[in-house]
């Protein structure tokens, strides 16, 4: 009399196990949605990251579906909604997602991230202190370089919180061009970009370097917490294995961000300092 419910329970349990396994198997076959930080135009973004995407598809045996967003704010919003399984994002955005417990940082680049402070080659400014009351050109108001640049000027007492003296641009390029065009007196852009513009336009002395921002951890890879710990490890392994393949090394050399490595706990701690400002700006 008592054995029948037990038997039914066992059958139900067995069936549930099979069903769960089938669902898990199907989930594994699903494409991995990879959200790329929209720091470049979609076309350039794909061209830049295609070698990494191909590498991941080969290593994980899964199709990678690439997504991005029209701007940083939308990207952050979609990240918060866990629209992506894997995210390539700026360190302070990573810190935000991490704090929201939506994502786990799985990898970062070995190089640090900082901005060059440049003025037009023809200008007479030679020190940061000379720029008091002048106009500062920076990239997007949410970009880490913008935050680092503003911090630098704020430390020196140049910026007193009056936002009217800062000119935000859609890209780092635009920020630098503002200085040449005389729309701003000084610009902060990602390190090396001003030199690259001088080289590609064959106009040496176009900019003059008068300083640099402090360094921040570099761009980071995050995995959604909807993925299992094993899957995250597998993805991290696949990313780090890029350092040891010939194609991967060529790709990383061209990118110039160093090797891909496991994240450092200090990195999160450092970057977490920017979170209040970021949150404040996101509320605007």
């Amino acid at each position, binding site marked *: 009399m008592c054995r029948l419910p037990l038997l039914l329970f066992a059958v139900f349990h067995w069936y549930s196990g099979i069903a769960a396994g089938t669902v898990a198997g199907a989930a594994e076959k*699903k*494409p991995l*949605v990879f959200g790329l930080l*929209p720091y470049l*135009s*979609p*076309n350039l*973004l*794909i*061209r830049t990251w*295609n070698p990494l*995407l191909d590498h991941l598809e080969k290593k994980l045996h899964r*199709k990678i*579906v*690439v*997504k*991005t*967003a*029209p701007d940083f704010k939308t990207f952050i919003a*979609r990240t918060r909604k866990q629209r992506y399984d894997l995210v390539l994002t700026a360190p302070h955005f990573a810190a935000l997602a991490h704090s929201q417990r939506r994502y786990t940082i799985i990898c970062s680049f070995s190089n640090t991230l900082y901005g060059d402070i440049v003025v037009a080659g023809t200008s007479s400014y030679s020190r940061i202190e000379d720029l008091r009351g002048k106009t500062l050109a920076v990239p997007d108001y949410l970009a880490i370089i913008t935050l680092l640049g503003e911090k630098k000027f704020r430390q020196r007492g140049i910026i007193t919180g009056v936002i009217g003296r800062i000119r935000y641009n859609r890209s780092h390029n635009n920020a630098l061009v503002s200085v040449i065009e005389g729309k701003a007196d000084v610009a902060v852009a990602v390190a090396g970009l001003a030199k690259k513009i001088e080289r590609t336009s064959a106009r040496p002395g176009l900019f003059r370097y008068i300083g640099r921002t402090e360094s921040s951890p570099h761009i980071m890879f995050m995995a959604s917490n909807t993925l299992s710990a094993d899957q995250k490890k597998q993805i991290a392994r696949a990313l780090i294995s890029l350092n040891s393949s010939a194609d991967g090394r060529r790709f990383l050399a061209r990118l110039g961000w160093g090797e891909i490595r496991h994240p450092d706990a200090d990195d999160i701690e450092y970057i977490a300092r920017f979170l209040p400002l970021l949150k404040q700006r996101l509320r605007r």
Partner: protein
Amino acid sequence: MTRLKILFNSLRFKLVMATVVVEITMLTILVWNSSRLINKNLALQTVGHLQEMQPLLNASIAGPLLQEDYARLAEVLEQVVNKENLRYIAVRDATDRLFIERGTRYQKQSAVVSGSKRTLEQHLLSSSGDQPYTFSMPIKMQGRTIGRIIFQYETRLISSAIRQVRQQGITVATLEIVFSVLLLLLIGATLTRHLRELTNAVKLIPETRKFSLDIHSNDEVGDLCSAFRQMTMELNLRDREREELLKELSEREQNLRTLTENAHDGILVNLDGRHVFANRYIADMLGYTVDEIRNTGIDDLVHPDERRKVLDRFKARMNDKNPQNHYETLFVSKNGDAVPVEITAAKTLWHGRPAGMVIVRDITRRKEFEKQLQAHQEHLEELVRNRTRELEQTNKELEAFSYSVSHDLRAPLRGIGGFSQLLIDEYTHQLDSEGQDYLNRVHAAAIHMSRLIDDLLQLSKITKLEMRVKPIDMSALVEAVVARQRDKEPQREVEVRIQPGMQAQGDPNLVEIAMHNLVENAWKYTQHVEHAKVEIGCTTEDGVATFFVRDNGAGFDMDYAEKLFGPFQRLHTQQEFEGTGIGLATVARIVQRHHGRIWARAEKNKGAVFYFTLG
């Protein structure tokens, strides 16, 4: 039912049916091909248009799709939809999630096919050709597929155009078939009317031997009519020829029968071992009636001793092995007497089957004659043998006599010759001129007689000598003879030509004597010629090696040629040319002993040629 069957089997029906089938086939191909070409061109045009749009749309859509910028995508799609028959457009991302759509989607269309001109062609030809054509293209960025775009293309106008082409084609084809059938029926009716008349006229030919139909037409029926008329005429001509032939055959048969029945030889025809025909003569010959002999076989008519031979030859002849056809054998009469016959057999046909025909000749009387002849011949041979023996005996005695006479005569003759020479040498001066003349004549006569005796002895010796036949190098032999002749008369200048390489078969001693006599003869009769020439050679006459000795001497009158080879026969006086008249007789005897032949050709004062063979 029969009329229907006749109609179906008629040429007219078959012609019409064949034409209809051909026309339907050809027109179907034509309509189908036209429809296919239109379809292909429209499909190519449409696909071409879509392919032109693809890179533009790709460029416009890829960025916003990657960014999931809904507003920008909506803007792009709204610019495209409802233009150029594009009724619906949708964009799906890489996970096949519908991202955005614009226009009115045709719901019934379930199959989404990838874009290609073939699939559009297939769609236009299919029963759902009126429904919009769903077309899908991938959206790519830097080689990476980031989604796909789906169109629904309005094909109602194209389908309608194709349908109209088809309907018009079918209408034109149907009309053409109907007109063709009517035209063919009309032609068929005219044609078959003539054919019917022709058939009726042809059916009457065997009975009437006439072809009375006269169709004045330049077409094939007219030609056929002419051909039948010609054929009837030929038929009548052949009939007449056949009748004449039959008559001739009948006459021949009658003649043959008369010949066979009245032949003075028996005639038998044997089919499968039985006699199926026999004439009266064979029946009478063997004591049978004709009917009796016609039931007999070879065993019944042939003597038991000859039966095997005759049967074997009969079988061989039937198997075309050509045995002896003409031979003598023995038949046996009804009362058991052997009848010698001579038969001539041949293979013939008897009612179309191979049979043996034998002509039998009774040779009983001939055999009797042969027996008598044989007896006579044997008697004659006995007589000849006796005579020969007697002659040989007489010859031997004669030869012995002549030898002994010649031999015995030589001793007194040597005395006469020797002493007359002594008288000439020692006592000539004691004799007057007349005495000297007499003495010289005695001496010359003795020498001549001595030569005569020598020649006679030689002739006699030649007759008795035993023959030793062997190969002879004639050229060498002649050279030796000529050399001796030159030694004998060194003062003579004679041009001699000897053919090299001459060979013969004979007794070398006898042949040398013969050749010596002939060369000596030539030498002698050229003594009065300024440039004497003698030629010895060999030629072939009637396939036999013939030796000759030619000279350019005195020659002789051919009227006396027969006397030439007889002993003591001379055609010139002793004063002209010395001689005994034995030399050529000796040569003739030697040639005779070799079973050869000798003859001469000459002309007086122009030389002579002596020919001889050695068997």
